[in-house]
């Protein structure tokens, strides 16, 4: 007990000595800080090991993109081949289809999926009927918790020409019924089902931002005789602009990281010309075709483009709006 008190008294004098602290003294103080909170460092061991093993070692393993990986020699023993695998990938005409499909799918998804949650949140914010507001929120939020397998299964069943009700509906408009077998429709099905699943969830973050808008601004607007539309345009939107920017940067960062899961599940031999994306191709080349080095090269290309996009958008956004992720 007294020991604890002693240390309590001793501790505040520590930082005040900081300016004239010399090398060994600094080290001594560091050691004392480490020893005093050794339990915190003990706690860190397992999770940090997890991050090293399952996040950072895989990053290092990316070297096999520049090697001819073989199981016997191992990752570090395999011979270097430079950019051979990358050249092999870009020499294949499929490469450009993959890049185009990946980009188109995510850009379309971004353009369609981004404004809708904002509109949903702004609209919900106007509603004064508690019950109605709650119901809309609860229902639109729910699909987010369905698994990808379930959502894709629902799509397959609902669009099935024989069973699904959408077939009758589309037939009424003279549309070809079997959308999932039609490569041209793949993108629309993919993107709009995504909007269906996530719009309610994404709206929450904007709802939270709207709740934080200063109420006195509304009163000022009222005195100035603003109508609801003007209120949204001049107060709500500027109020949630920082949130919009952050969410936007995050989704641009995900542009090349478009999900494997859904594209893979929605794929069939008929729509492959539009539905084969980098992620699904990597899986097929790497795990089914066992060409580990080529698959890693493709995956690395994808991740690097993604990182560059994210950094670039963050820089631009900081210049233009003053908001950024870091």
């Amino acid at each position, binding site marked *: 007990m007294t020991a604890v008190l002693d240390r309590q008294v001793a501790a505040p004098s520590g930082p005040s000595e900081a300016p004239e602290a010399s090398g060994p003294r600094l080290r001594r103080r560091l050691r004392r800080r480490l020893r005093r909170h050794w339990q915190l460092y003990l706690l860190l061991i397992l999770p940090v090991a997890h991050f090293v093993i399952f996040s950072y070692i895989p990053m290092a393993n990316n070297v096999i993109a520049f090697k001819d990986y073989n199981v016997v020699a191992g990752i570090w023993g395999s011979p270097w081949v430079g950019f051979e695998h990358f050249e092999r990938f870009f020499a294949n005409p499929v490469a450009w289809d993959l890049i185009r499909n990946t980009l188109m799918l995510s850009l379309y998804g971004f353009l369609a999926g981004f404004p809708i949650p904002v509109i949903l949140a702004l609209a919900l914010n106007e509603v004064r009927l508690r019950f109605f507001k709650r119901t809309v929120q609860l229902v639109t939020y729910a*699909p987010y918790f369905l698994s990808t397998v379930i959502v894709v299964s629902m799509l397959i069943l609902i669009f099935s020409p024989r069973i699904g009700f959408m077939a009758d509906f589309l037939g009424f408009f003279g549309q070809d019924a079997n959308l999932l077998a039609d490569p041209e429709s793949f993108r629309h099905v993919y993107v709009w089902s995504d909007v269906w699943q996530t719009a309610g969830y994404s709206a929450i973050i904007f709802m939270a931002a709207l709740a934080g808008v200063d109420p006195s601004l509304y009163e000022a607007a009222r005195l100035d005789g603003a109508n609801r539309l003007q209120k949204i345009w001049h107060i709500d939107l500027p109020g949630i602009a920082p949130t919009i920017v952050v969410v936007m940067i995050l989704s641009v960062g995900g542009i090349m990281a478009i999900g494997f899961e859904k594209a893979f599940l929605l794929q069939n031999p008929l729509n492959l010309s539009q539905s084969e994306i980098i992620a699904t191709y990597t899986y097929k080349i790497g795990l089914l075709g066992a060409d580990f080095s080529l698959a890693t090269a493709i*995956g690395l290309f994808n991740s690097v483009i*993604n990182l560059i996009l994210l950094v670039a958008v963050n820089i631009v956004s900081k210049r233009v709006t003053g908001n950024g992720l870091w």
Partner: protein
Amino acid sequence: MFLETATRPDFGAEAETKRRKTRQRPTPIHDTGVDRVFMAGVYILLTTFLLLVLVPLINILASSFSSPAAVSSGQVFLWPVDFTLRGYEAVLGNSDILTGFRNSFFYVVAGTLISLALTVMIAYPLSRSELVGRRALIGGVLFTMLFSGGLIPTYLVVQSLGMLNTPWAMIIPAAIGAWQVLIAMTFFRSSIPAELYEAAQLDGSSDLRFLWSVVLPLSKPLLAVIALMYGIGQWNQYFSALIYLRSEDLYPLQLVLRNILVLNNNAGGTDLANQLERQQLADLMKFSLIVVSTVPVMLVYPFVARHFTKGVMIGSVKG
């Protein structure tokens, strides 16, 4: 002893209702004629949205209770035709599905416990400013959100650890989410008052003791949010199973679902006389299967809806 004097973090249900009451402000804008038209537009928009989300869900539910013949000929829309439970009987009689359920329950429970423990173990120390190298460690966690090793390099790690085709592959490689670490860290920083720690220290409490007897009991809402996030994520995921598992008796429900629903692998035989009937039952069973496999998620949904929203909001605050 210091517990009584401590104020609870502003996260509990009481605080929420209080906040909601104070947030109820009088309508700030007087409605003009333009506004009435505008509000009508808002209600129409939201109702359309509500229906777009709801109709497919109701259609699945109605189909799952209809007769095989009605489902196969596409007669069901929003109400069951020839009500029957045959689809559910078929689902519950399928041994693959039951195995999948059992495996998924195991993965969810074990995975959530491990994820929760690891997340608290890293988030709590990171929330303490005394920690040497704190910023670097946080940077290391954040960087994994921007850049990842990729499919094959990660696969090689799991392979070299001998986890392929074991239940561990479902639980360990994705045990910690950077996002959850951030949420937990922000919560600990903002909701556990520094005075509390000082009081505990005066009473001779160690860091571990403080975490166990003060921080965790005060963090129940946070632990619930994070456990739900991990649990639902684990329940819904099939990708690890697809790449790491070979033997079917380890398959989680989602992979079994994929084989039946997406790949259309019916358990049915080739008896020609019964083929039509089997085909019809297989169609019906898909609808029932969707409903059954979603029930566990929908059972926790009320908790999810209450707590998740706050989790998303904490996550949106930059730490």
